[in-house]
């Protein structure tokens, strides 16, 4: 099977500004970036808290959050579908089969990922970071910020990972988005469609497009990540 031709064609469409392809790309980026931007602050904060506050059941909570990483995204999609369905409790919002529904799903999927990896990064930080900040007069919030900044490599890895998860998942996006052309079709659901048509090469070409986009996003995200964390 020839991969070169479809890939070249996909990039050709990309650069000639094929509106259908760009619409798909836009939906992918818009939904995943919006979801991460919305959910990262609370999730990172929670991961930080679990890492530094010790309370009974903390260890169990950590293991449970880790287990949530195994939750299939399509099940997240199913649950959100049932909530957003016209008959569901949130049906009145009319969010089903819209990009916003996908964003909600992505937020749910990204949440445990961000919590677990922020936790892991903060856990690995030198406890003196937080103490030094506090001792120099930083209030709780500011000290937390300083600590997160010291482990920025790990926190950005968490963000990058959650982005990777949502931007490449298909189960939830197809379930709550409906894979509607021109509205909720994004790169993975488009790949699913190509695959279901037997157009495997096209699917792989779209995968390459996604990787190039992800590379761009990661380069952008790696600027704040910096060399600071590198020893």
């Amino acid at each position, binding site marked *: 099977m020839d991969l070169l031709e479809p890939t070249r064609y996909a990039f050709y469409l990309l650069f000639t500004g094929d509106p259908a392809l760009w619409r798909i790309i836009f939906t992918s980026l818009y939904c995943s970036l919006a979801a991460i931007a919305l959910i990262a602050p609370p999730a990172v904060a929670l991961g930080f808290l679990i890492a530094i506050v010790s309370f009974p059941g903390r260890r169990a909570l950590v293991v449970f959050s880790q287990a949530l990483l195994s939750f299939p995204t399509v099940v997240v999609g199913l649950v959100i579908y049932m909530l957003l*369905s*016209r008959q569901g409790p949130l049906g009145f919002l009319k969010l*089903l*089969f819209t990009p916003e529904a996908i964003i909600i799903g992505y937020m749910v999927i990204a949440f445990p990922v961000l919590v677990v990896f922020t936790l892991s990064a903060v856990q690995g930080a030198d406890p003196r970071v937080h103490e030094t900040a506090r001792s120099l007069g930083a209030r709780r919030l500011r000290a937390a910020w300083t600590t997160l900044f010291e482990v920025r490599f790990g926190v950005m890895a968490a963000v990058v990972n959650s982005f990777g998860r949502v931007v490449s998942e298909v189960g939830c996006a197809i379930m709550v988005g*409906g894979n*509607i*052309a021109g509205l909720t079709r994004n790169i993975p659901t488009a790949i699913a469609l190509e695959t*279901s*048509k*037997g157009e495997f090469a096209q699917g792989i070409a779209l995968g390459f497009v996604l990787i190039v986009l992800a590379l761009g996003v990661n380069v952008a995200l790696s600027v704040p990540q910096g060399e600071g964390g590198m020893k």
Partner: protein
Amino acid sequence: QELRLGTTYTVEDSGLLKVLVPAFERARSIKVRAVLAGTGQVLRIAEKGDVDVVFSHSPADEEKFVAAGFGVARFDVMYNDFVIVGPAADPTGIRGEKDAVGAFKKIHARRAKFVSRGDDSGTHKKEQFLWRSAGLVPKWPDYLSTGQGMVRVLLMAGELQAYTLCDRATFSAQRAKAGLEILSSGDPRLRNEYGVIAVNPAQHPHVNRQGAQAFVEWITSEAGQHLISNYRIGGEQVFFPGAKSRR
């Protein structure tokens, strides 16, 4: 207000949807959002009122859907047929068999490799109907129940050089890739009916009743039927207009 059309991958995969939707949008100035899903899934989301009109091919389920009050009425739109395909070598010798049930009996007798959709789709329902008609229960090691879409099942059958039941449109589109041949076709029991149903506004007051009505009317009208009969895959007609004069 836009119209939400729930339809199955088979319709999209054949390329027909890309012809029908824009034509309808132009004809009636109604924006269509096509939601794609598996057959059971389409009926389920329609049942919950999340789409306005359904276009699928599982007559038995569709009748049940209407009978339960979820749909207004079911209308025939078009049909094609299923074909029994398999490797050119045809180890069970069903080539040219006009009786689909007879062909299935031979496959069963040889315990030949058979890939089944296994997903309660219209195609799967048809397959089960044929086994039932043959008085057989399909259960042997090389009877593979896969739970996948038509194209993937066809390609799997190609990979494994197995038999399978496939609709003609999909087979025409994938013939080259699958490397299988039509071995048995023409039995009237292999007819594949596509129908359209407007979701019942009595159950779901919020549905786009006018839009759904318009779609049902249009697709069963002269214009819609004409488009269907003119649609070709590789020069081959794969769908046949089937709308009876509307009751």
